[in-house]
C-alpha cells in the first residue's frame, strides 16, 4: 500500500470532523472518496498533506509516518495536493505558477514543463498570462499542472470538477486517467459520483466523518444505496 490511514480522527476545536477513518490507496490506483458536503472529504485530504493536524490515528505514506509533518515536508516525500477551489497564484503568470510548483526541485524543469504543456496545451498558449485571468477550467488545469511540477508519486485531487461545465469536466477526467497511466497514484475527492466512479478503481463513501461503505468502483456504481444517495435516482436524494 502506498498510503494508509488508520483510525484517523480530526477535530476542529471540540467538534469532531473525522471520527476514525481507515483507508488505503495502492500504488498506481485511482481511489475516489465520495460523500455529501461536510462529510469530511476535504478534511481527510488536508490532514494527509499536513495542512490539518490529526487528533489521533496514523497516516503512513510509502512506509513513512506522516504524523506531525509540515505541508512542505509531506510534499517533499512525493504527495501533491490540488486544494479545493484550485488556489492558483492569481497574480503570477501561468509559467510562474508552474515554476512555484517545482519550487523544491533542483535542476532543469524543462522536461516537466513540456510534459504539462503536452497534457494541457491551453496552458502553453497562455504561459505569459496572469493565472487569475484564466477561466475556471483553465485554472483547474493550472492547479493540477502545478502539482505535477513537483513530480508527486501520489496526487490528492479535491473536487476538480467543482463549478465546471460538463465538457470541461470530461476533459479533466480524461487527463486524470492519463496522469495515472504515466505512473502517478491518485486519491480523488468528488461530489460528481458517477464520473468519479467510472474513472476510479475503488471508492469510499463518507458520511459525517466516518466511512460507511467501500468497494470496487463498478460495484459501488451498481449499489442501490449509492445510487439512491449520490447518483440522484430517488427524488429528494443527492449531495
Amino acid at each position, binding site marked *: 500500500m502506498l498510503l494508509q490511514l488508520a483510525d484517523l480522527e480530526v477535530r476542529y476545536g471540540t467538534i469532531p470532523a473525522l471520527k476514525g477513518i481507515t483507508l488505503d490507496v495502492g500504488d498506481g490506483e485511482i481511489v475516489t472518496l465520495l460523500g455529501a458536503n461536510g462529510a469530511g472529504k476535504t478534511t481527510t485530504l488536508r490532514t494527509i*498533506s499536513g*495542512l490539518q493536524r490529526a487528533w489521533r490515528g496514523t497516516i503512513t505514506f510509502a512506509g513513512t509516518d506522516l504524523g506531525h509533518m509540515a505541508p512542505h515536508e509531506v*510534499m517533499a516525500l512525493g504527495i501533491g495536493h490540488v486544494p479545493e477551489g484550485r*488556489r*492558483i*497564484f*492569481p*497574480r503570477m503568470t501561468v509559467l510562474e505558477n508552474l515554476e*512555484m510548483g517545482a*519550487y523544491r526541485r533542483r535542476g532543469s524543469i524543462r522536461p516537466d514543463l513540456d510534459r504539462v504543456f503536452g497534457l494541457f496545451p491551453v496552458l502553453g498558449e497562455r504561459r505569459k498570462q496572469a493565472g487569475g485571468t484564466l477561466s475556471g477550467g483553465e485554472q483547474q488545469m493550472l492547479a493540477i499542472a502545478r502539482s505535477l511540477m513537483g513530480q508527486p508519486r501520489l496526487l490528492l485531487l479535491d473536487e476538480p470538477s467543482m463549478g465546471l461545465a460538463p465538457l470541461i469536466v470530461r476533459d479533466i477526467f480524461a487527463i486524470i486517467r492519463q496522469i495515472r497511466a504515466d505512473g502517478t497514484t491518485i486519491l480523488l475527492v468528488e461530489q460528481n459520483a458517477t464520473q468519479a466512479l467510472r474513472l476510479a478503481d475503488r471508492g469510499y463513501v463518507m458520511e459525517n466523518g466516518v466511512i460507511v461503505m467501500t468497494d470496487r468502483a463498478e460495484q459501488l456504481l451498481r449499489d442501490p444505496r449509492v445510487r439512491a444517495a449520490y447518483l440522484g435516482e430517488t427524488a429528494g436524494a443527492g449531495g
Partner: protein
Amino acid sequence: MSTVRAPTPLLRRLWLSTDARRLAACVAGGLVLAVMTGPEGSGTAPTSGFTGSLGNSRVIGFVVFGVVLWLLMTARQRYGTEIRAVSDRLSAAPRRLLPDKRVRGVFYLVLLGIAIGYPTVLNGFWQEVLVDQIGVYVLLALGLNVVVGYAGLLDLGYIAFYAIGAYSAAYWTGALPVHPLFHLNAFYAIPLAVLAAMLAGVILGAPTLRLRGDYLAIVTLGFGEIIEIVANNLQGVTGGAQGVIGIPHFSIHFLGVVYHWGLGSLPYYYLLLGFIVVVLIAFHFLENSRVGRAWVAIREDEVAAESSGINVLKYKVMAFAIGASTSGLAGMVEASKIGFVEPGDFTVQLSILILVLVIFGGMGSLPGAVIGAAVLQFLPQYLRVHPLFGFQQQDLYLYLGAILVVMMIFRPVGVFPSRRRKRELGLAEHGVGSADAMESTTGPIS
C-alpha cells in the same frame, strides 16, 4: 413675443451641479483642516481657535489646497484614462530610458555622487534633518518594506525593534543602569545590536507568524506596546521614562585607522548612506532570489504556497527577522548619533508613520521605500521652517492621513510601485484576487 420662462435660480443650478457641490465640499474640507491645524481656543476666548485660523493669511493656502483637490478629482473624472496613460508612461520612463545595464549603472553612480556631494553644501539644520529624519527613516522603511511589501505581513509594532537596537547600543556602551557583560566601543556594538533585534524578531515571529493578516497585526501592535511600556517602567534596567543619556559616538581604532564620529551630522550621514547602499544591494538580490519568490507566493496565497512545498513559516520568520535587524541597525545608529534614548521615541505612531512611508512609496519597491521615506520626511521639515505654511509637528498625522486618503484614490500602488505589485493591484481592480495578502482567508490559524 415668445413666452418668458423663469430662469432657474443660480443657486439652485449650482446645487444641482455635482461639480459645484464637490467644490464646496473640498473648500469646506480645506477650511476644517485650517481650523484643526490652527491655533487653539482658550477658556477666556473660546472662539479664538476659529478667528485665529480663519482670519489668518494661512487660510488662503488651505482654500487653495481644497480647490486643487477639486481640480484633481474633476480632471480624473473627465480625463481619467488619459491621465492614467501619461502617469503609466512616466513611471515606465526610467526603465525605457535606461534599458542598458551599463547605462543604469552609471545612473545609479550619478545618484550616489549627488547623495555624497550635495549634503556638504547644506547648512547644519538640513544636514541634521538628513540624518535624523531622512537617513534613519529610509533605513527603517527599507526594513519594513521586506516585511510588508515582500512577505505581505502587516507589522504594526515595527518600532519595537528600533527600540531594541537603540537600547542595545546603550547596554553595550555601558550607558544603561545595568552593567554589560563587557564594555564595547559603540561602533563594534553595531553587530550585537543588529543581532539582538533579529533575535527579538525570531522570538516574536516564530510563534505568532502562524497567525494571518489582522491577527498578526494585533499581536505586533501588542508587542510594540509591551516594549514601550517595559522601557518606561523597568527603571532599574532601562532608566525609565527619563531615558538614558551618555551613549558615546562611534569611533574606530583599527589597524592604524582612527576615526571619531563627533557632534557633526555629516559623518553619521555618510555612515548611514553606506548602510543604505549595502541594504539596497542586499535586498535587491534577495527580492530576485528563491527567497523572494517564496515571499511572493506567500503573499498571494498561503495555502497554495504550502501546497507548493514552501516552508511558509520559515520564510515569514526570515522576512520578519530581516526587517527587525534593519530596524535595529537604524535604532543603533540614531542612539549613538543623538547620544540618548527615551521610551517616548518608540510610540505606536512611529510604527504607523513608517508604514505610511512604505505605502506612499509603493509597497514591495526599493526605490519606492527610499523615495517615500525621503519625500514624506523632508516635507514636514520644509513646511515647518517655511514662513508661509506654519506647519506644526503635532498636526503631522492629520496631513499624513489626508495624503494616504488622496493616494488611495488617485494612485493606490504608491508613487514608485514595483512592477509586480502594480500588476497585482491592477488585477485586483478587475476583481481578480484581492489587493494585498494581508487578508485572512480561512481563519486565525493555518
